[in-house]
């Protein structure tokens, strides 16, 4: 399997990227880590005329932390974020999810923003972005805008990104006192795409559960913490409109939502209590 022909440009600045996307009229594509795009090129599922390599743009390669939000630039590789000394302290959910994303051999190249752009329904980072109410920072020559995760993911591998837009960064709120987090993934083998994946955030105001791998995009719900939890999970399970596929039946997926969903929200509540205890001492 070899890719069809395309031209290649190694951009040095964000302006170069935007200019190339602007001029090509949809024929150009960004190449970041290449871990989803190159398989598609090899299988000739994608046949772009031009690939714009963004990995040498210095301005895109940072993680910025202003205390309230972590902003992860388009050039930041998944493995770099995983290995950063303070990722777990600054946003635990990211640190919990990253080891599940493929293998070290793919995380070493793949980027955080590339996974968001690719928008696989089973992918971990779109799920985490949804659970945390993160934002996608888009830029083109025409405009710059930010979209909340839930508005960005519009369908299976379909997003609100226009063809001339670059995902410049994604941002998530940093850890907040009094907040607990939990993540869990069900897959056949570690590193496989999720049959279902769960990310929960519990703070004093609400309990929020996001689920990936079941609907066409990750979905989040605010759940009650009292006896209503099981009913709410059951409703959530049906609302996701799971389908049968090669990996699991719809019924199995609904059962995962009810049972694993419950375990994960309880784990987030326990995490919140553990963190509160630590903050107190």
């Amino acid at each position, binding site marked *: *399997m*070899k*890719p*069809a*022909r*395309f*031209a*290649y*440009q*190694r*951009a*040095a*600045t964000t*302006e*170069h990227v935007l*200019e*190339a996307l602007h001029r090509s009229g949809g024929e150009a594509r960004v*190449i970041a880590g*290449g*871990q989803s795009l*190159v*398989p598609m*090129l*090899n*299988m000739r599922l994608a046949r772009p*005329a*031009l*690939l714009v*390599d963004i*990995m040498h743009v210095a301005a895109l390669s940072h993680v910025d932390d202003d205390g309230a939000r972590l902003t992860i630039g388009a050039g930041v590789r998944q*493995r770099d974020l995983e290995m950063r000394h303070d990722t777990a302290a600054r946003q635990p959910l990211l640190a919990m999810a990253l*080891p599940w994303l*493929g*293998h*070290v*051999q*793919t995380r*070493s*190249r793949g980027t955080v923003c590339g996974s968001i752009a690719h928008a696989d329904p089973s992918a971990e980072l779109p799920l985490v972005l949804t659970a945390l109410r993160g934002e996608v920072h888009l830029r083109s020559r025409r405009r710059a805008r930010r979209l909340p995760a839930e508005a960005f993911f519009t369908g299976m591998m379909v997003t609100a990104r226009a063809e001339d837009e670059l995902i410049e960064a994604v941002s998530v709120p940093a850890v907040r006192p009094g907040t607990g987090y939990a993540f869990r993934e069900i897959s056949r*083998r*570690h*590193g496989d795409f999720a049959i279902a994946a769960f990310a929960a955030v519990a703070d004093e105001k609400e309990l929020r559960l996001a689920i990936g791998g079941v609907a066409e995009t990750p979905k989040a719900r605010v759940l009650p913490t009292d006896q209503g939890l099981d009913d709410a999970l059951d409703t959530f399970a049906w609302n996701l409109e799971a389908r049968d596929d090669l990996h699991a039946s719809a019924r199995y997926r609904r059962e995962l939502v009810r049972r694993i969903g419950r375990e994960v929200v309880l784990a987030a509540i326990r995490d919140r209590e553990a963190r509160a205890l630590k903050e107190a001492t």
Partner: protein
Amino acid sequence: MSRQAPAVLDAGQRHPVRFTLNGRKAGGEAEPRMLLHDFLRHVLGATGTHVGCEHGICGACTVQIDGAPARACLTLAVQADGAEIRTVEGLASAPDRLSALQEAFRAHHGLQCGFCTPGILMSLDALLRERPDCGEAEIRETLSGHLCRCTGYTPIVKAALAAAEALRVPHHA
């Protein structure tokens, strides 16, 4: 615009690609669509890197790019321009020698047909360098990125543990 836009490498034309291969300068010409494993094997004649699935699943093509294990089949040769590439040919200090990791694979039957071996060695070599005190769990996690149709993995894990041990203990001939 701050700087002049960088050159577009035309489709269907060959362009110079240069990088460091196992510590030495290497170079050749490649169309933008040429994958790194084909460049290594066909242009540079470095056939130690194997090719299986060509879509990132099997791990046979794994090399080290700037020190980290990565799929050559998911990397364009032009993307590797200027990088530091290490392949299985670079593991041993001389053609008639084996590295400690390779020696452990031989001693513990870590290979049968050997198709998966170069890729697995490059992943484990990086792991042992980064985490000399790694245990079985980390070794298995690293191996999750590789398929071996012959060994059942157990001898590979044993070999990796033995290599980690050998590398920790000061060497004696």
